[in-house]
């Protein structure tokens, strides 16, 4: 029986972790993630879980501790944001290169400088190429459901990769929303017992992690890492199908909202996608065929499926809440790559919004859809990349 609650995104993730009851958790505070780990630490102190928490002196150490614990044979979690994720950077590659299924909620926040504690996607987009699986979440329910599914995905015997679950700082992490919790037993049954793969603590079979590999085999090792990433998509869909049986909530590689017959569409991640569904409804009510694609699995990126979903749309704007300065936004680059092989493809533009927690308001999405409507009717593209919601 589902339990209906009104909780923050951080509480929802902490509760998902409690229900899974992992062996080890690396803990270091950083806004806006802090109260997720604070909550988890209280579960430990109150005996609600038997996780060993490791209080470390930095996120670099936190990820290092997680890598050690996961290689030893434990089910391991941590959580971070912004500078914390940035400080983990070199260890993120080691977690994925060693194929350790560490699960990590990332509460998205801008990167310094200038210092800013609010939500944008610069942190996780900066970790795009670290070899981690990335799931993105619109709201507290998504973040909770993705966290639970992440264990099944990362720990799958064909995968064995670390997974980050991204949710928007403050907008979701600190907002209270109605959502549904599964029962503890249901979650426990869903994620199952942790299956070990080459644990260091199996002392009868000594092994070594992270050895030196010279040019004779390194190239092959990295190709293998890419190939295992290609298997993730099917596992994500299989896990989502099982999760739907349990919860009634449907997840895919991305959400298509009123996209089937759309002439114009936005591609947008996380909380802003929710706001955009209401904007799309407004355009539909006026007879304009607008739609939305909300990516969920960003790494590996489902190029073929996205091309299929967006191929017939006339004009698409990819909205990025982070930037690659001097280049296009990271989501734009993926959508562009997905659509290029098509013979006929939409006109594609890129708009950067919401950096450092700047509000994404309905008027912003409306202005972009109006621009797309003009383009779809044969209008000229004034600028392929532009910042929106900028103060004059």
């Amino acid at each position, binding site marked *: 029986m589902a339990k*209906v*609650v*009104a909780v923050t995104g951080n509480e929802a993730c902490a509760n998902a972790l409690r229900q899974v009851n992992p062996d080890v958790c690396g803990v270091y505070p950083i806004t806006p993630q802090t109260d997720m780990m604070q909550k988890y630490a209280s579960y430990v102190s109150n005996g609600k879980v038997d996780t060993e928490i490791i209080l470390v002196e930095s996120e670099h150490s936190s990820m290092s501790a997680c890598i050690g614990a996961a290689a030893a044979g434990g089910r391991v979690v941590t959580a971070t944001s912004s500078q914390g994720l940035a400080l983990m950077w070199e260890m993120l590659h080691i977690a994925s290169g060693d194929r350790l299924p560490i699960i990590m909620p990332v509460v998205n926040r801008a990167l310094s400088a200038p210092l800013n*504690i*609010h939500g944008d996607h610069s942190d996780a987009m900066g970790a795009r190429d670290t070899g981690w699986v990335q799931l993105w979440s*619109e*709201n507290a329910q998504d973040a909770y459901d993705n966290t639970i599914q992440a264990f099944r995905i990362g720990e799958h015997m064909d995968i064995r990769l670390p997974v980050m679950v991204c949710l*928007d700082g*403050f*907008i*979701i992490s*600190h*907002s*209270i*929303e*109605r959502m549904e919790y599964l029962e503890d037993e249901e979650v426990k049954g869903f994620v199952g017992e942790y299956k070990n793969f080459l644990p260091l603590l199996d002392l009868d079979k000594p092994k070594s992690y992270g050895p030196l590999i010279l040019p004779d085999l390194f190239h092959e090792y990295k190709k293998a890492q890419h190939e295992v990433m290609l298997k993730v998509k099917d596992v994500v869909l299989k896990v989502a199908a099982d999760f739907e049986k349990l919860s009634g909530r449907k997840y895919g590689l991305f959400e298509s909202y009123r996209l089937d017959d759309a002439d114009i569409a936005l591609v947008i991640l996380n*909380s*802003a996608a*929710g*706001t955009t*569904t*209401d904007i799309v409804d407004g355009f539909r009510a006026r007879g304009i065929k607008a739609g939305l694609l909300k990516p969920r699995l960003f790494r590996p990126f489902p190029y073929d499926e996205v091309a299929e979903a967006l191929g017939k749309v006339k004009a698409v704007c990819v909205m990025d809440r982070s930037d690659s300065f001097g280049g296009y936004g990271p989501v734009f680059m993926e959508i562009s790559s997905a659509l290029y092989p098509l013979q006929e493809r939409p006109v594609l533009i890129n708009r950067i919004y919401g950096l450092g*927690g700047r*509000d*994404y*308001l*309905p008027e912003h999405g409306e202005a972009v859809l109006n621009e797309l409507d003009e383009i779809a009717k044969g209008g000229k593209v004034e600028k392929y990349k532009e910042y929106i919601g900028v103060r004059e």
Partner: protein
Amino acid sequence: MAETIEIRWHGRGGQGTVTAAKVLADTCLSGGRHVQAFPEYGPERAGAPLKAYNRISTHELRMHCPVLVPDVVSIVDATLLDSINITEGAKDDTIFIVNTSKSPEEIREKLKAGPGQKCYTLDATTISIESFGRAMPNSPMLGAVCKVTGLVGLEHLLEDVKSSFSKKFSQKIIDGNIEATKRGYEEVKEG
């Protein structure tokens, strides 16, 4: 109730405004409603102006941005009437609820409220001082918002205040807040 009610709270840091929005969200969960409660995060300091928001709806809420066109504006600190534009984005029928010892008529005049807009007042600060000895006007304001909007009945609200406050406070403070919530519910006046 209308399909969706959007509420904007104005208060100052340390008055429990964010807590009021959170308890309101919790108590409105009943009847299968969808709820949101979220503050506007800035540098948090006691006494600094802050805003918090609620959305309460019969359908799923996917909008994740501040309330721009409020159905209800709840002003927890009347000194804000002179320093910020609390009527921003108000509609022809927006409801204003103000913590003040002044009459609803005086507030109506001050806000230059339109004929369709309703103004309510209560002396939430005095109620809180009398109920539990502290100027913490959030619980009477919560009572007033529930009364004026009809979102939840008094009995149900008091149950929720009790369970919310019992996580953090002593029995004396819980009882005081229940009394204050009840008085806010009963003493709010329309002008």
